[in-house]
């Protein structure tokens, strides 16, 4: 596994991750490219720099934990975990096929190194806070990172978890909102607007960092600030572009849950060369 804090090296991993996402969703003929591509820098920065984890020892009790609460974006998680050495890269092309470990949504029965089975939106933050509370009880240095979709945080449970996390001073949990402004049926502002989002998290008692979610140095700085923040949990509002890196997918609600055609795949891979 390549562990590095060098943004240029992380950028290269990010590009390769995008290529793997496009290839696996094209092969599967279904899946969610938009929200996978928007979260690439977030996951690469976490897995290849920030997280304390060991692919050779996935059950290490003091490891940091990662939950992809917006489970439909699992292609980005599978690509990043495979490149770290958790699972075979060659098998990514079997995404969503019968018998594949790369299930349509993260499934711990198939990949035990996953921290959670997700896919029903709205539950990951509560789970993550539970894991963080256990770490605190165990006096473990383990920290928990939860990636949420912007559409996902329309679920009431997210705000129950937000209230709880602040009230119980759970400062070893970090929520990252992939704020790509698009959900399934269209733009978030046309469905159920979240604004003022930074103020909402602040008023719920969280330390909030508003950041460019495609800037690796900005993300590194935000994760460091989160670790240094004591007494309250941190929410990172990552301003992102849905479909980032593939021109015809960027900001296009169509590619929330539609696989690229073979031609679109070729075009996308050219852009990601």
């Amino acid at each position, binding site marked *: 596994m390549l562990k590095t804090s060098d943004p240029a090296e992380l950028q290269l991993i990010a590009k390769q991750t995008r290529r793997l996402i496009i290839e696996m969703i094209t092969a599967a003929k279904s*899946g969610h490219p938009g929200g996978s591509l928007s979260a690439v820098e977030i996951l690469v920065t976490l897995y290849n720099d920030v997280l304390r984890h060991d692919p050779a020892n996935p059950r290490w009790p003091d490891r940091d934990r990662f939950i992809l609460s917006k489970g439909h974006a699992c292609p980005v998680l599978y690509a990043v975990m495979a490149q770290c050495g958790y699972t075979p890269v060659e098998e990514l092309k079997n995404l969503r096929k019968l018998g594949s470990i790369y299930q349509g949504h993260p499934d711990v029965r198939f990949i035990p190194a996953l921290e959670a089975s997700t*896919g029903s939106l709205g539950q990951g933050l509560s789970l993550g806070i539970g894991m963080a509370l256990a770490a605190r009880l165990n006096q473990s240095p383990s920290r928990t990172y939860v990636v949420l979709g912007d559409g996902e945080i*329309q*679920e009431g449970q997210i705000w129950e978890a937000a209230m709880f996390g602040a009230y119980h001073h759970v400062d070893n949990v970090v929520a990252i909102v992939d704020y790509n402004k698009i*959900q399934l049926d269209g733009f978030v502002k046309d469905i159920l607007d979240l604004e003022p989002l930074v103020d909402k998290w602040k008023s719920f008692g969280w330390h909030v960092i508003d950041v460019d979610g495609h800037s690796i140095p900005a993300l590194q700085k935000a994760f460091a600030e989160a670790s240094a923040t004591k007494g309250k949990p941190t929410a990172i509002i990552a301003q992102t572009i849905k479909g980032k890196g593939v021109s015809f997918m960027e900001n296009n609600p169509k590619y929330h849950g539609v696989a690229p055609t073979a031609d679109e795949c070729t075009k996308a891979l050219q852009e990601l060369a």
Partner: protein
Amino acid sequence: MSTKTKFELKLGQATREAFGKALAELGRENKNIVACDADLSKSTMITYFAKEFPERFFECGIAESNMVAIGSGLASAGKIPFVSSFSAFVLNKGFEQLRVTAAFPNVNLKVVGTHSGISIGEDGPSQMSIEDISLACSLAGFTVISPADEVSMKALMRAAVEHVGPMFIRAGRVKAPVVYAADQKFEIGKGVQVIDGGDITLIATGLLVAESIRAAEALEAEGVSVRVIDLHTIKPIDRDIIAKAAAETGAIVVSEEHLVDSGLGVRVAQVVAETNPCIMEFLGVNNTYAESGTPDGLLDKYNLVARGVLATARKALARKKK
């Protein structure tokens, strides 16, 4: 429907598609109909209604429990609301709201759960609803329907609007074989005897109706006389059609795309036990959450196809012979 017809079982619309189209059509006739969605309008097909009647459509975002209770509020104030999402989300996330704001006060809320069963396919278990019949039937006073094809969905949607009281309607993602002629009549609470026969009865709901017809035709070819019954209404269950089948055929197989120990089968068994006890066998999902795959691949792997119905029927027939 007459006996011994040859069924073509050509693929028709998915029942979610038939639901969406029927709702838009009914919306033209009845201004009291309103609809709510939780960011899945293009998947549940409630989009047809939303496009035609934007002023009577409420997009609730990804917040199913809120949507259910908003629907109950609309119903309490005299509207006829259809609230819809994937079956797994609207029932599991909305269950407490369904219980307290819809079932308990008995309001006229219509809940439509699409993408039921394992035939949703590639998305996998988190989106698969294999416990929805159980959950919906456990809501006292609810009517629960599960149409097998586009014809029955269309007719039962009309019946749903006429019926006053809370209701759950189960729909599927994939194209469903057409079982019925366009003029077939349906009544809530009355099963349809699709094929008459005397040696064994195959009871099914949803996609398993067509599979049971296929299994029946295979058995007929071997000289077994098979009755097939579509229980499109699961609650209130058609006691008469079940009691009669038990008495007249002495063996019943129940097949469903649902957990086998908490769906249609156990409800049929209760009626059989209370009326004319007979040999029974059951086909469904066995105590597991399935996985990702193509819809056809999954139905095949989990035996929810004619082959599975046939094997289950053979077990029942062998027991009957003894």
